[in-house]
């Protein structure tokens, strides 16, 4: 199916892909839909981009649902291991 479901988050950070240096990213677009490249019928897709920048300056992830959960868990663990004052 084509879910159309799309969730967005304002973010602030940098990203890097092959062939380009780091660039600012201000928006994460997250959706569960057909991937362009991953060999799965549906994947959890994340686009990290600068909404005001060149569309080619984008880091794209296509993860199986289980991989996405593992990533969320890894991020939560990494954040949990850091003292609160460092995350302010």
């Amino acid at each position, binding site marked *: *199916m*084509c*879910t*159309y*479901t*799309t*969730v*967005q988050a304002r973010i602030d950070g940098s990203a890097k892909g092959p062939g380009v240096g780091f660039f600012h990213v201000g*928006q994460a*677009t997250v*959706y569960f*839909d*057909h991937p*362009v490249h991953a*060999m*799965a*019928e549906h994947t959890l897709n994340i*686009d990290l*981009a600068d*909404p005001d920048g*060149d*569309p*080619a300056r*984008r880091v*794209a992830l296509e993860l199986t649902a289980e991989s996405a959960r593992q990533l969320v868990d890894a991020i939560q663990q990494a954040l949990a291991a850091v003292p609160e004052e460092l995350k302010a």
Partner: protein
Amino acid sequence: MYESMIATLVRIPGHNGDEIEAYVARPEAAFSRGGVVVIHHLPGWDRGSKEIARRFAELGYDVVCPNLYTREAPGASPEDAAAVARAQGGIPDERLVGDVAGAAAYLRGLETSNGKVGTIGYCSGGRQSVLAACHLDVDAAVDCYGAFVTGEVPTEFPLKVTNLVDQLPGLRAPLLGLFGAEDKYPSPEQVAELERILAEHGKEFESRSYEGAGHAFFATDRPSYNVAAANDGWERIATFFGKHLGA
């Protein structure tokens, strides 16, 4: 079969006269023929969409596949442009209709045109093919598993998409619908609703749902590709366009 063809990129006037990119494929032979507007899927104006355009040229049609995301990301790769379009909530229906009108006018202006034009779309383009046929003078339309032609759009969907229930009574062309019985968007119930509404309004509608096929069964580069459904679907499309777009 017209294996000798010309395929090229052009710029055509779209909605509001905006210049948009389009992929054109045409048989390399001088004879009077119909035209087909290929409406790409949500993932964009990609290789698969252009392969479909060439297949219609091989069947003997002049074909235009407009880049519906030209304005969002001019010159960007199809997948990057699709990411921008999705992040912005998709494209407005009014603009889609204007862009398809521009593509149809381009086809009718070709010296080989017999004046007839059909539309076909896949995924989000399936809905847009129906939408265009509700507002434009086209001679045939094909909807390949378009979601939200009928059915309720969940309120939390950020994509600005509505169903076409209130517009279906204005459908101006015969419609062929090809669906996967395992699909959820559109579900078999939503397809049944479409059938019922069009029957109520006396519209010409041929429909086929393939058992064992899900969404995107025509997409040869995706795991959803279903050989049996796609092969039968192509035959039905060829027959349908042959009937309605022929000389």
